[in-house]
Each structure stands twice: as structure tokens, then as C-alpha cells.
């Protein structure tokens, strides 16, 4: 039933920033609309936060790391993860 939203209202994507990236963006969470896929979303983020360009990060979609472009849907959670430092 959700399919009818494809070209309808803008989908909202939660974007989370972790580690150094939260300091750089000045927030740990924003909402982005109208991003169709992860590549598009990153482009939008780079416009908002140009200094992200110089950062190293991994991308997680709904808590799983992704390594290539993924289509986004309403309710998805994207996280930009600075290099890990556990232990």
C-alpha cells in the first residue's frame, strides 16, 4: 500500500552522525526529505556540511553497513559513522 507514495509526499529519512562527525555537523540527528537513494542523500549532506568531504566515514542503513548505493524508503535510518574506536 505504501507504493502509492512513490511519487507522492516526500519521504523522510533520519540521518544520524556519530563520533567526530557529530562535532563537525554540530548535531547528532537531522531529517532529510526527498532523497531517493543513499548517493543522493550524501550529495545533499555534502551541500549542508561541506567539511564532510574531508572526513572518513562508513554508512549504515538501518543499522547495517552498506557498501553501495541503496534505495531509500520512508522511515529508513541512515547513520554516518566516524572510524571506530572501541576497546
Amino acid at each position: 500500500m505504501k507504493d502509492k507514495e512513490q511519487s507522492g509526499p516526500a519521504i523522510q529519512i533520519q540521518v544520524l552522525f556519530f563520533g567526530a562527525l557529530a562535532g563537525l555537523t554540530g548535531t547528532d540527528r537531522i531529517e532529510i526529505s526527498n532523497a531517493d537513494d543513499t548517493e543522493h542523500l550524501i550529495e545533499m549532506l555534502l551541500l549542508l556540511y561541506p567539511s564532510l568531504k574531508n572526513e572518513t566515514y562508513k554508512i549504515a542503513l538501518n543499522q547495517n553497513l552498506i557498501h553501495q548505493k541503496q534505495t531509500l524508503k520512508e522511515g529508513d535510518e541512515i547513520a554516518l559513522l566516524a572510524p571506530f574506536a572501541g576497546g
Partner: protein
Amino acid sequence: MKLPCWPLLQEVKPVQVTYQGGELLPASISIPDKADNSMNEPKKKIHKVFVEGPINSSFIAESIAKHSSKTDIGAHSIFLGQVRKDEIDGKAVQSIVYSAYEEMAEKEFHRIREAAFEKYPLTCMHIYHSLGRVKAGEVSLFVFVSAMHRQAVFSACSEIVEQIKLRVPIWGKEVLEDGSFIWKVNNVGQDDKK
């Protein structure tokens, strides 16, 4: 008899065990203990990994003591990650403030745990990691692996620690003596740059 460990519930005895067919059997019925019986084992108990603040030595000692009733264990291996007082630009690290993407971290810990049980004949495994402030000299990571024999625990413990550093979304702010901070970065696969 391979039952999961109950690290935080020492006095609580499992009353029922879910057997493979989904039928509930009382715990007193012994499940065949065969080396090749791993598929029939009860699901390993999942416990919370993150603890607020440092992992203190009494907690570690209690964790060890809780295993004395598990007499099929012949070997434990323990890794403790301690916050090191590094010097950065002439300023000493006073503490590390840890944060995590908790929902994802729990998933990754679960995967690491399942993979280790799959690969090694372990009896039990416990992982604890700090969140929040841990001062230099205090412990922020506690990995505790037990099995019948030493080879499995040495290998598994080392592998688990490497996997945690590589895969689990945890960050640490190294707070320096003048109050400034820098973000710690792990050097996976090289020396243990805690």
C-alpha cells in the same frame, strides 16, 4: 551438559529449557552431551554488553567466581582493555568518554558472538564494554571466554577482541589534561592501540 551462562543472574536458576522441537522440558532433564550436538544446544543467553562507566575489578572477580559451578570448563581466557595515559602534543590523556550507536553495536556484538560459537567449541562467552567516562588506568573492555581446553579460548578471545575493534560502532573522546579532546582511532590489525 552445555547450558548458557547466566552472568548477571547468579542466583536465578533456569527453570525450563526449550528443546529443539519447541517442547518445554524441565531443566532437570539432562540434554545429551555430545561434542557433535551443537545444533541442539539451547540458544545462548544474550546479555547486555554496555555498562556505564569503568568495569571494576570486583565485577570481573565475581564474573570469574560465577563459573566455578560450571565444572566442564577447563580453561578461561580474559582480555581487559585499559585506558592508557597517552601523551598527545605534550598533554596526557586523562580519560576516554565512550559513546556508541547502540542499536547497531548490539547487532554487531551478537554477530561476533554467534560467529565465535560457530567456529570454536566454547562453553560460554561474555563481553562488556564501557560507555561514558573511563579514566586512565581503568578498564573499558572485558572479554571473557571459557571452554574445555585452552586452545579454543586463546584463539577465540584474540579474534573476538579484534572483531570488536574492527566492527562495532563505538567512539572514544580522549580528554586531555587541559580539558581539550581528540577522537581516538583504532589501529586494527597492528598493535593494540587502545
